[in-house]
């Protein structure tokens, strides 16, 4: 059984408990052990690209170093945590000045220089479990369901740091949908932004973006949308003028594996 250091992040402990619960249950069923460190800090939600911002990057470095000390890869489920942690890891590996400043702050027993491998949960399904193996464990295939994968912005970009999939023609979520027995729907807005945190101060802008995404999925005949991001889920549900059911990908994963009652049958 492979063990990962698991970083849930702030929202999976509060408004997105299902994303966390079904990620854990499904991992257990697939023979993946998720070990959550005793103390972790919020990643901050957005990566600050500025080279003269160091303190805002330290919480991500702490969790990366915690995984390193346990000699394990690090895994995240939330798109935002994944984005912040991978960008931090990329920059600390490629920017000596940043690495020096970070290590001066943290004074770790051994400096951290980007040694940890970071996986998004979907990457774990693809690269560690394998979608073929996942398909064999499915007991409730999502037969006949037309499912639109919503990548948004955080899962894929900036692609040189996230290195997860082709940023303009991704397949990882569509391959996941096929593995659990559904039919993926390709639509133009699948890797465009939902409006993100702008919902706090400009509902109209958030609504414009979210409506464009949901309409685009609907126009291509989708029955539902799946996402890995709590803020995308919120925007697509609350701020869109078009309606489609929106689920976390872990909801459908747990359903397919027989770990959760089928809710959209």
């Amino acid at each position, binding site marked *: 059984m492979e063990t990962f250091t698991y970083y849930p992040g702030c929202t999976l402990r509060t408004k997105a408990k299902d994303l966390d619960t079904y990620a854990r249950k499904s991992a257990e069923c697939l023979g993946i052990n998720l070990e959550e460190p005793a103390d972790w800090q919020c990643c901050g939600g*957005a990566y*600050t690209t500025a080279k003269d911002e160091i303190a805002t990057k330290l919480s991500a470095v702490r969790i990366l170093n915690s995984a390193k000390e346990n000699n394990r890869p690090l895994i995240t489920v939330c798109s935002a945590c994944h984005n912040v942690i991978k960008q931090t890891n990329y920059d600390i590996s490629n920017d000596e000045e940043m690495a020096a400043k970070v290590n001066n702050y943290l004074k770790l027993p051994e400096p951290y220089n980007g040694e940890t491998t970071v996986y998004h949960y979907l990457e774990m399904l693809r690269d560690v479990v394998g979608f073929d193996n996942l398909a064999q464990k499915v007991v409730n295939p999502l037969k006949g369901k037309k499912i639109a994968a919503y990548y948004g*912005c955080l899962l894929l*970009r900036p692609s040189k740091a996230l290195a997860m999939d082709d940023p303009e023609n991704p397949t990882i979520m569509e391959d996941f949908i096929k593995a659990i027995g559904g039919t993926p729907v390709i639509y133009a807005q699948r890797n465009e932004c939902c409006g993100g*945190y702008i919902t706090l101060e400009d509902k109209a802008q958030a609504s414009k973006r979210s409506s464009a995404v949901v309409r685009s999925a609907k126009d291509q005949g989708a029955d539902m949308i799946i996402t890995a991001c709590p803020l995308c889920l919120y925007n697509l549900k609350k701020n869109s003028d078009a309606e489609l059911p929106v689920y976390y990908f872990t909801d459908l994963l747990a359903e397919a594996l027989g770990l959760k009652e089928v809710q959209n049958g």
Partner: protein
Amino acid sequence: MDKNLKEQVLRSSGVNVLKCMRCGKCSGTCPSYDEMEYHPHQFVYMVERGDIETLMKSKSIYKCLTCFACVDRCPRNVEPAKVVEAVRLAAVRQQGNNHMNPNQIPEMLDDDLPQQAIVTAFRKYIK
């Protein structure tokens, strides 16, 4: 033109604005285009010109969603979002110039709003 300010933005962003060939693809793909007074390609050339205070005063700096579309799609790898970020930081780092007051947060909440939205706004708007 404030030379120190220009140097600060260039250093903070790490961007070489001279690589820009003004194709406008960053602005064409920007999800906040309609809401912005100055668009991503304009940020790049206004920083090149040293006209940074104009950008710092514009609401455009709070419209960037940090979706990295302009970063990934720029054919010259200029990374305009990093310029927007550096200009925004130059503005919010000034004393008393936070874009959001934490006391406003309770009235923005609803039952479903994820914490992620609030912490992200704090990162973006407050120093």
